[in-house]
């Protein structure tokens, strides 16, 4: 190879390299130019969002429930502040705004707003002027108007309106939400968030490589959000909320009075003896279970029959008087008025003592907090008792540790018997409009504006004040639900068998009671799910006449107050109408509803059960469930509010699925039995409904069969007040009800309120005033807790009332629940009475709240 050739090779290499450069240039500048242009453009602009004012919320009469005012915010543009200047600026701002400089510096460091940090919201005009006048001390600081949410009516309709806050991760998944935005968290603020927010504007600046603003490149004006006109009537809403609050306070007072009475009635020694007996029984049951013994209960097992190889109960049964008494009524939390509160948070620092309020206050002393296996464990003392506790531990009967931190202990002091809350809905049965809705305790949405403090949020959380229990609360609707089998009876001409005063033979698939005779002394499995009655087994079968089916709604049924089953082993079990154990005597369908006779509906359920088809599990077995579902039970109504619950209409398929999945919601063994269907007929068992569903179901039954989709938003208007959209009235289902059925139901509901002999709500409505004859309703008392008897001998019930007015052409359906309030007739009916008085007789017609009679 000569030198020329070698130079040639070098030349080829050189030009190949230059060719490579040209080729790459070509692909970039000709092939991918658009992509690069885009990147170059995005490089040079900086977009600053300008928030759009949130839409207002009005009631149906134009009362403003939520609005927006313009506040002045202090914003620092970090890009205009040199790194060295920041600390000085932070100190200047800190002195001016009264916040620690370190906090402001933290905000600078954690800037997530693209260089613009809001260091103060809502400052006064004087302060704003000062900042603007001392510009040189505040480099990069500007005062800008910022829309701030206002709730002029505070707590009014809070649960419907909801509240706003910073978006969480789930909110951020929405395309139009940025971390710095404010989004609706509950109520219509949430369900109509996108509409209320409008679209934010933007100012685009041209910037250089240091992101320094060079010029204004363009501006998009923010579009204000749409405003909502609700179906609510704020005056009615106020009445409802007042009545709910007063009703709950009254229920708590009643509870306190009963406590005082029972304290007097039962001596200390009696109660200890009771507790000891219960504990012995429980120990024996455990012992039976452990040894596999078939002895039933202490009452049936004779000592002489015990074989020698059956050992004596291994444990010496003792009860600690303190857990029985010390933790009972005198020690339960009370408020400043001496009224019980369901849950009280007590925070105690290490080495300090905190007060556990109560009729007899106690002191909780946190003696020390130590670390044990990486867990924090606190040693606390109440009186002479010492407990070692960590997170979530329950102790001293009524206390539960929320959390143990390094320097303090936070405990919940619970009172499981204190009425928890009251819930109410007023619906227009003609189109599903919600006229008023809410639960108590409630909250003022304003506390969320600009961020809520940890303590405030915690106390709202402790009381579950943020949840709208009208759509989120699930309750077994109890006797209010009897209207559904009532309608079924009339529509299908289907009535119970009259057994006279005898027992009822139940086929091979006996109620669950039979399955576990050992535990009968405690409570039957079906019972513990909340069946509406006491039950017991007896050895002897009683003679009975041949049952005769009733043929019409006016045929009379003999209500003995005792409902007896013959089980397949020949024993007979008795279920009693727990509110009316003496029996109602002979009554027809109408009387059964008016007096809320459990037995009538139990027998109806049993007849349905007997006509089931075991092969397919259908036929009459599911007829009641089908009626329930067609009236809207078991499925969320689809109201325009978030977090609505479905409720539950249990049936055999559901039961099997729960058993298979071992959810623990149903008994682990045994089939779906007639007793389960009986429970449904009286709104107990696993049956669950929201207060709204209950109101909506009644609305459909009294309006002739139209199930409307409830709604809280009527119209959407723009900033000029022009209506831009109207929320449609949506019929969900049309149930073909015989006009006679509807007429009869209205009549009987009217009788519940007006019948002086047996109407369960007559006492509550006694001082209704004029027009009481156009008001109807139904009471309900739902058993929620069968508390272990070593801790309580009190029954805790949910109180229900559903009211309808005017009865012949209903415009209002009122559904009231007082959770753990007691009986429906006594506690819930008076609340509904006030609301109905307001609706029928106007604001002046509302009379003082007073407890009604204890009636189911």
């Amino acid at each position, binding site marked *: *190879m*000569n*030198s*020329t050739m*070698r*130079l040639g*090779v*070098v*030349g080829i*290499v*050189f*030009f190949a*390299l*230059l060719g*490579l*450069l*040209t080729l*790459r*240039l*070509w692909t*970039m*500048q*000709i092939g*991918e*130019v658009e*992509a*690069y*242009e885009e*990147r*170059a*453009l995005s*490089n*040079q602009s900086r977009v600053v969002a300008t928030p759009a004012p949130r839409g207002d919320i009005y009631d149906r009469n134009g009362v403003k429930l939520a609005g927006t005012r313009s506040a002045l915010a202090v914003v620092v543009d970090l890009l205009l502040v040199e790194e060295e200047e920041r600390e000085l600026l932070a100190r200047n701002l800190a002195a001016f705004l009264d916040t620690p400089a370190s906090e402001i510096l933290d905000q600078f460091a954690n800037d997530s707003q693209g260089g613009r940090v809001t260091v103060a919201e809502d400052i006064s005009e004087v302060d704003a002027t000062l900042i603007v006048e001392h510009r040189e001390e505040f480099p990069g600081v500007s005062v800008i108007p910022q829309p701030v949410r206002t709730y002029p009516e505070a707590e009014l309709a809070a649960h419907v309106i909801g509240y706003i806050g910073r978006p969480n991760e789930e909110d951020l998944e929405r395309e139009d939400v940025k971390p710095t935005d404010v989004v609706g968290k509950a109520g219509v603020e949430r369900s109509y968030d996108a509409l209320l927010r409008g679209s934010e504007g933007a100012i685009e600046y041209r*910037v*250089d*490589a*240091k992101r320094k603003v*060079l010029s204004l490149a363009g501006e998009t004006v923010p579009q204000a959000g749409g405003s909502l006109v609700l179906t609510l009537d704020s005056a009615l809403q106020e009445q409802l909320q007042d009545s709910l609050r007063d009703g709950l306070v009254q229920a708590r007072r009643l509870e306190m009075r009963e406590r005082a009475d029972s304290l007097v009635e039962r001596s200390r020694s009696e109660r200890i003896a009771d507790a000891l007996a219960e504990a012995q029984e429980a120990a024996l049951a455990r012992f039976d279970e452990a040894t596999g013994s078939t002895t039933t209960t202490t009452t049936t097992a004779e000592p002489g029959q015990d074989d020698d190889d059956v050992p004596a109960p291994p444990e010496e049964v003792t009860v600690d008087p303190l857990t029985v008494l010390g933790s009972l009524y005198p020690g339960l939390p009370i408020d400043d008025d001496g009224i019980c509160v369901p849950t009280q948070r007590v925070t105690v620092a290490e080495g300090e003592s905190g007060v556990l309020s109560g009729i007899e206050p106690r002191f909780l002393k946190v003696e020390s907090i130590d670390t044990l296996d990486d867990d924090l464990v606190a040693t606390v003392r109440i009186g002479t008792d010492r407990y070692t506790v960590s997170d979530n531990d329950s102790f001293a009967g009524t206390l539960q540790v929320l959390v143990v931190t390094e320097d303090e202990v936070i405990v919940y002091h619970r009172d499981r018997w204190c009425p928890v809350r009251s819930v109410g809905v007023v619906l227009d049965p003609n189109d599903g409009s919600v006229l008023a809705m809410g639960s108590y305790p409630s909250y003022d949405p304003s506390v969320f504006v600009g961020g809520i403090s940890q303590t405030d949020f915690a106390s709202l959380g402790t009381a579950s004040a943020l949840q709208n229990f009208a759509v989120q609360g699930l309750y077994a609707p109890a006797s209010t639900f009897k209207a559904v089998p009532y309608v079924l009876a009339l529509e299908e001409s289907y009535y119970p068998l009259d057994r006279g005063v005898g027992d009822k033979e139940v086929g091979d698939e006996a109620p669950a009671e039979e399955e576990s005779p050992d535990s009968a002394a405690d409570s039957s499995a079906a019972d513990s799910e909340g069946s509406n009655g006491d039950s017991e087994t007896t050895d002897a079968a009683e003679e009975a006449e041949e049952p005769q089916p009733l043929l019409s709604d006016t045929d009379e049924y003999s209500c003995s107050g005792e409902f007896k089953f013959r089980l397949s082993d020949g024993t007979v079990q008795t279920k009693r109408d727990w509110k009316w154990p003496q029996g109602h005597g002979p009554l027809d369908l109408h009387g059964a509803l008016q007096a809320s006779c459990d037995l009538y509906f139990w027998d109806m359920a049993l007849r349905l059960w007997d006509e089931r088809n075991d092969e397919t599990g259908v036929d009459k077995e599911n007829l009641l469930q089908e009626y329930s579902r067609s009236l809207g039970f078991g499925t969320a109504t689809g109201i325009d509010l978030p977090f609505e619950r479905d409720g539950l209409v249990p049936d055999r398929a559901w039961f099997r699925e729960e058993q298979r999945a071992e959810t623990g919601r149903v008994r682990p063994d045994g089939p779906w039995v007639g007793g389960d269907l009986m429970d449904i007929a009286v709104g107990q068992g696993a049956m669950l409904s929201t207060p709204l569903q209950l109101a909506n179901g009644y609305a459909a039954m009294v309006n002739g069969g139209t199930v409307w989709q409830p709604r809280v938003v009527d119209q959407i208007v723009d900033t000029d007040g022009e209506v831009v959209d109207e929320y449609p009235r949506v019929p969900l289902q049309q149930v073909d009800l015989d006009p006679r059925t509807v007429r009869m139901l209205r009549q009987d509901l009217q009788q519940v309120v007006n019948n002086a002999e047996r109407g369960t709500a007559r006492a509550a409505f006694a001082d209704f005033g004029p027009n009481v004859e156009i008001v109807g309703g139904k009471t309900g008392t739902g058993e929620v807790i069968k508390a272990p008897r070593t801790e309580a001998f009190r029954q805790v019930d949910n109180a229900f009332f559903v009211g309808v007015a005017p009865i012949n052409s209903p415009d209002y359906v009122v559904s009231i629940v007082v959770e753990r309030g007691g009986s429906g007739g006594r506690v819930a009916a008076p609340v509904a009475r006030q609301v109905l008085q307001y609706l029928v007789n106007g604001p002046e017609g509302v009379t003082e709240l007073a407890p009604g009679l204890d009636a189911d």
Partner: protein
Amino acid sequence: MAYTVQDRSPVFLDRDSPLRPDLTLVVAYLVLAAIGLLMVYSATAPGLSARGLDPTAELKEQAIFVVIGFIVFGVASSIDLMELKGFVGPIYAISIGLLLVVLTPLGDSEGIAQRWIDLGPIQFQPSEFAKLAVILMLASLLAGAAVPLTWQTTLRAVVFVAVPAFLIFSQPDLGTMLVFGFVLLVMLFVGGATLRQLGFLALVGVIGTVGLFQLNQIDEYQINRLTAFLDPASNELSLSYNQVQSEIAIGSGGLFGKGLFEGSQTNLQFVPVQASDFIFTAVGEQFGFVGGAIVIALFGVILFRLLVTARSARSRFSYLVVTGIAAMFAFHIFVNIGMTIRLMPVTGLPLPFMSSGGTVFVAMSAALGLAHSAWIRRNMTLAERPSEL
């Protein structure tokens, strides 16, 4: 070495003059220098005026060096390489000395690397001249060696390169070191090394580089530059920020570019050190593919003229010097432009005749002048033309 001064026109235009310059080369050099000045101005003016400074400050400073560079080019063109050959040893020794000075406290550091000697108002970068010294030294060695080269000669050549390369590496300047490697390979190749020797050297080079990595002898920032090149998106805002921004600037230039002073990336200073290492970015953004291709073509013209000069050189020494200089230019051009369009990692090699920076322009002009001198004197002594290898 007498020649007649023509009456009618200057000597360089006289077609018959034995000293007639290589007009093509000179024009390409001047045009590139002019484009370079324009680009330096367009890349620095917005930043300077934004800071309230004279927007032409950088231009003026560079212009002074360009003028100095032109003079140096002229002077170098008049130096007979054959006369210079006698001074190769001292030149080499002096440049090694200067490299050592950089490592002393006299050296001024910019960024992490220490490459400068501070001479009061003028900063001087010895490594630029070391390149030229090494080329002269290698040419001197290889010119007198038998062809094909013995292993001994090849190894001596390696040692001559290795000493300054090691010193530069300690500064540290990976780019310049690589220039040495490339120049060495090209000069050995045209100097008559066997393919086996070249292959062996290439292998040693690769193993050596890998070894340096392994022994952590390469500073972290050098590794980062190389790895950032492989995945620029991973740290867009840090290491390869320059490269990403440069790529955006050039890519968005399109066919004809955004026009002079219209480059948004350039004007808004998205590309740091744009006037020096990333000067080609300004060309690509403002004049697009057409402008970029013209600049590359001008470099092509220079490289072509240098190879033609090498072929017609009157001595083996000149032949080797010119080829070495061409190799140096070629490597600078490819690595620098390649870096701005993310074809090569960021190494900090300037673009000849265009990048701002006094030492670079003057040194490059001197190198080009020397090669040009070989062209002017190509016919002087035919006997000394390189023999067949």
